């Protein structure tokens, strides 16, 4: 076991000692090209959430180039890769679960003016997001739900106060 470890690490060192100047240049050229591509694509208005998907896919490709070639994960086996991949797993968990939480909440649990939230009381200027997303009906429905929730909430509050005294 020790001997295989020694030999693989020697191979790894040799790979790292090898000249990478040409490779660095092509990675740099690819990164510039992808930056230009994502800038150009951002001028188009993709339907739905596709702009986010396109921009983040290109960003993932660029970061993969940086991590693999500038940061040498391509040449380094084992522990360093494992550490980085583990951090990516936690990135996915942290972002995935928090966004999934907001996306699946009971509508009025979201903050005022937000998607699925109720309109802020006495807010000047802009109509809330919920109203702008689907004009008319959903705004009135949200306002009605807000009224119901407030009524129930105040009823619960007052009953708790009377029970405590």
């Amino acid at each position: 076991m020790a001997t295989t470890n020694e030999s693989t690490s020697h191979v790894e060192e040799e790979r790292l000692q090898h000249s990478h100047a040409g490779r660095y240049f092509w990675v740099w050229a690819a990164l510039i090209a992808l930056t230009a591509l994502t800038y150009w694509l951002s001028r188009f208005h993709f339907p739905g959430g596709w702009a986010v998907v396109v921009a983040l896919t290109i960003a993932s490709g660029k970061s993969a180039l940086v991590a693999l070639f500038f940061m040498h994960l391509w040449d380094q086996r084992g522990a360093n890769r494992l550490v980085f991949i583990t951090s990516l797993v936690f990135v996915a968990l942290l972002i995935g679960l928090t966004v999934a939480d907001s996306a699946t909440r009971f509508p009025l649990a979201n903050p005022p003016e937000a998607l699925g939230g109720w309109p802020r009381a006495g807010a000047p200027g802009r109509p809330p997001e919920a109203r702008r997303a689907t004009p008319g009906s959903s705004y009135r429905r949200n306002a009605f739900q807000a009224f119901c929730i407030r009524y129930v909430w105040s009823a619960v509050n007052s009953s708790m106060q009377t029970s405590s005294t």
Partner: protein
Amino acid sequence: MQASTAHLAHHFESLEKQTHAARLGMWLFLATEVLLFTALFAAYGVYRFLYAPTFSEASRSLATWIGAVNTVVLVTSSFTVAMGLHQAVHGRGRRTAVLFGISVLPALVFLGFKYVEYGHHFHAGDLPGKYYTGAIPGVGASIFYTLYFLITGLHGLHVLIGMIVLAVVGALAWKGRFDATYHTPVELAGLYWHLVDLIWIFVFPLIYLI
């Protein structure tokens, strides 16, 4: 392999093992850095989901070309740092120092653009939280600028630290402290700088493009 014993700490068996340990330690640190920024990106994800139209509008009001130019600037700086390591691997410390010096210049350009942008935001009232008095109405716009200043501010701080690290390691390389067998600080400074670049690669689309 000829190990230069001057750099070998007594608790390591060989220079090779010491280099491996240093590299692994750096990757562990970089993983914590990734998660530090991920917390901010998660907050961005939640509020972007909740205030999608306002976030798009606020994002469109930023100067996209500055973000694009800054991306090119940082990517180029990463390339010159990688070339600096390439020279260090071949024991050419002076060239490493020159390339690290060249890498610091784009970072100054980057911070210069950030200064111009921040100045513009201060004048327009695009400030975080309760200080927001900008043109786009609604709660979402002030949250966008809170996250904007948190993310770009923390990243800018990393650029500043990275510049100092590159300058110090570059100066040591100029003095001939490293050779073909021992150049771990050059490699680790490079890793830090590439991570700063990698984070910007995600900041650019999130803040400027979508």
